[in-house]
């Protein structure tokens, strides 16, 4: 398995790399357009702001690579948000692969950032969720999220019902950090590795 983690320079890639290593997969970390476009599987991790994330992708001229990529691609946290059309964080135009927008979490259910373990509510069956208990807790750290929509596989509630897991064709994404979400997270990463290209 040739799996490449996109190095945007703003994300902490070590924990994602180690999580795949625990599943027995050696991962390459790269910001090279050719390496990324030829990967069998792509992971776009993310920590930091939408502006910084998109600026990093543009600076490395990677935007078009994502638009053309046809094999399974996993966006994590900010990496998920960058797949959308637009993020309210810094009023940022994103990759536009998913026709919806990312909005701020309201503070009605507690402090923001939404930080800690929260429960998934599975709304659509999909091989990406095989073996994941319907009430699993997973680890979130974020202040923005996408509302639930036709691509939502699992939602979580915190101030609003947002997409915790989405899938649209070859695009897979988690708003939480599967690499830090115990057994449930490991299962989801394994399912991504097994996803049909």
């Amino acid at each position, binding site marked *: 398995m040739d799996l490449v983690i996109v190095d945007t320079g703003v994300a902490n890639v070590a924990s994602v790399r180690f999580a795949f290593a625990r599943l027995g997969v050696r991962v390459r970390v790269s910001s090279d357009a050719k390496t990324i476009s030829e990967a069998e599987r792509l992971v776009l991790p993310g*920590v930091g702001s939408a502006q910084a994330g998109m600026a990093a992708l543009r600076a490395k001229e990677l935007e078009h690579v994502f638009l053309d990529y046809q094999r399974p691609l996993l966006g994590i946290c900010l990496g998920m948000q960058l797949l959308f059309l637009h993020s309210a964080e810094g009023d940022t135009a994103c990759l536009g692969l998913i026709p919806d927008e990312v909005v701020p979490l309201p503070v009605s259910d507690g402090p923001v950032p939404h930080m*800690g373990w929260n429960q998934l509510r599975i709304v659509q069956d999909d091989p990406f969720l095989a073996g994941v208990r319907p009430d699993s807790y997973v680890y979130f750290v974020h202040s923005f999220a996408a509302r639930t929509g036709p691509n939502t596989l699992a939602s979580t509630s*915190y101030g609003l019902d947002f997409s915790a897991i989405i899938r649209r064709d070859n695009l897979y994404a988690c708003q939480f*950090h599967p690499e830090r979400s115990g057994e449930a997270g490991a299962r989801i990463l394994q399912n991504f590795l097994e996803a049909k290209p």
Partner: protein
Amino acid sequence: MLARRIIPCLDVKDGEVVKGVRFADHQVVGDIVELAQNYARFGADELVFYDITASPEQRQVDVSWISRVAKVLDIPFTVAGGINSIEAAQFILEAGADKISVNSPALLNPDLIDALVDKFGSQCIVVGIDSFWDGDDWQVKALTGDPDAMISTRWKTTDWLQQVQQRGAGEIVLNCMNEDGRRNGYDLKQLAVMRKLCAVPLIASGGAGCMDDFYDVFAKTDVNGALAASVFHKSVINIPDLKAYLRQQKIEVRL
């Protein structure tokens, strides 16, 4: 619902996990990687590693153990201790830590918080506050890792708590020093006051002695997490029992 977090804190000195009473007389309690893995296996929601020797001795944390921990751990962890620059923070985050926590260096140079938040985002910048009731008010102490180096600051805890939020701190760990290591329960009075002033996640630290102390701190002060060390290291409380008890008492926890 968002679960309340149970957070074992591993004080690290010279690369080993130690625990002292009221910050002094440290005893070695075990190997970092082994302890970390065990805590994750038994249901800890997160771990905090404090390199308690770092600030007084003006050195950075040694990062080799951070990568070793990051390789085996599938829950988040925070590293604290003497992080006084962007470069130091970057080193630690790149080694695989999820969050960094700053304490004394932020008191000496509050702009450090803004700089860290600008570079890495609020979500991974925790501010630790060591708060001491001096008879009149809660006061912030610095350099608490070493009793000889410890100093009082000009900050009241209520003011500093608000100051660090304005500067973008994404989470606050409030260590109530008068209770630390005594196992008489968390400082509910102080935590309730600070909770009202805290719009970001607040973690209680200092004083856990029995399972009811965890129930009290969640039910009476609405903190997001409870941090403890000796009760876990010395197996006074085991986490599966604690979580089952809290769940039974209608406190939301991850089982």
